[in-house]
């Protein structure tokens, strides 16, 4: 079903911008918060922090609605604000290194799948922030190179080299023989 004109993301966003229409904002939250939570959870490693970041994203979308320009696809704009929020959260964590590293994934998965999943999350935590953000946006959300470049304000070539570097690090971490349970940081 094709959404009616007044229901497209862009129309909702323009209504929010023009009149602070709260119903328009609520519809955007209903439509997009699930995917954004998935991205934030993979970037921040915890459900609670992810929810917090998505909440701050929509809050800022609301308070800074006038920053939106109609040439932006709303989803790209949302991912820009979301990654800004997540990356700022990572900056804060770095300033307070005593904070725990990304926590375990949710329970209730088949054991083998869970193990690999945890491995992958631990490995992701070792990828530098910029490459990690790109990997997550690409593999959780399937964004194209062009969209990734727009979201992060970098060239398509930089997107490609960052992704390649991130994958190299992932591969190296995942193929490392787990010697002991601790000694994560070499």
């Amino acid at each position, binding site marked *: 079903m094709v959404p009616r004109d007044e229901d497209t993301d862009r129309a909702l966003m323009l209504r929010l911008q023009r009149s602070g229409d709260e119903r328009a904002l609520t519809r955007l939250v209903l439509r997009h918060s699930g995917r954004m939570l998935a991205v934030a959870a993979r970037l921040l490693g915890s459900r609670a922090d992810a929810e917090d970041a998505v*909440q*701050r994203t929509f809050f800022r979308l609301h308070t800074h609605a006038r920053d939106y320009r109609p040439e932006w696809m709303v989803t790209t704009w949302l991912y820009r604000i979301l990654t800004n929020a997540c990356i700022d959260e990572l*900056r804060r964590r770095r300033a307070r290194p005593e904070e725990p590293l990304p926590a375990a994934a949710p329970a209730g998965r088949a054991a083998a799948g869970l*193990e690999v999943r945890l491995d992958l999350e631990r490995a992701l935590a070792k990828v530098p*922030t910029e490459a990690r953000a790109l990997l997550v946006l690409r593999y959780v959300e399937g964004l194209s190179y062009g969209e990734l470049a727009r979201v992060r*304000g*970098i060239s398509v070539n930089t997107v490609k080299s960052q992704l390649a570097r991130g994958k190299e690090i992932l*591969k190296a971490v995942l193929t490392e023989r787990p010697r002991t349970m601790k000694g994560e940081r070499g």
Partner: protein
Amino acid sequence: MTSTMQGTLFDLEGALRDRLRPEPVEAGAVRRIAQGALRRLEQLERIRDEFVVDASARGVVAVRRGRRAEAAGAAARRNAERGREELHEYLDGRRAFFEVPIDLTRLAPFQRRVLEGAMQVPFGETTSYSVLATRIGCAGAARAVGTALGHNPVPFIVPCHRVLRGDRTLGGYAFGLPMKTDLLALERSTPVLEGCTSTKILCRVGCSALARARPDRHVAFASIEDARSVGYRPCRVCRPDAA
């Protein structure tokens, strides 16, 4: 374990796609997000409407409720005007640090030390009364520190709202706890390091160079190294590398 590890070895792309797949979202989360997004930081509008900035030729001496007083002399007027502008940008979520000079010379030495200590607490972060007391060399004087903060003549700009009780509860605030909560919420939703996507220059949020860039060209970074790794360089005006 080994067989699944082999799988990730041979097909990283597939593993990423498969294992990063979104999970179903709990309905409560969506509701909480919508409520949070619609939350109004009403206290902040009151600060903008009700508070005025006083300054001397040395810097801002007070942020207080009431009528604006005429500053004596051009330098004092400039400081007051600059303080007011920066305060409004801060409340607007477009400034993560203050540049306007602050004049604490009229205060007693202990209060001055406490306020200077509070100014070291980074934007968006918090500390406790007792940690601050220790940091200024007065371990055990948490209560006196709390009192000195309670009489902070330059609230918001000297961030006494970033000091909480040791158990992370809010403690006190001269203008009421809702305002303290709103200020902390504002700071958590304002990024600190942002680059401009067209100039590829990294600034502290609030830098005049960044403010000139279109707001849809701002991207946040977690560190200067991260920004450098994708081709951004630190600004020479606000010097994020020196901060």
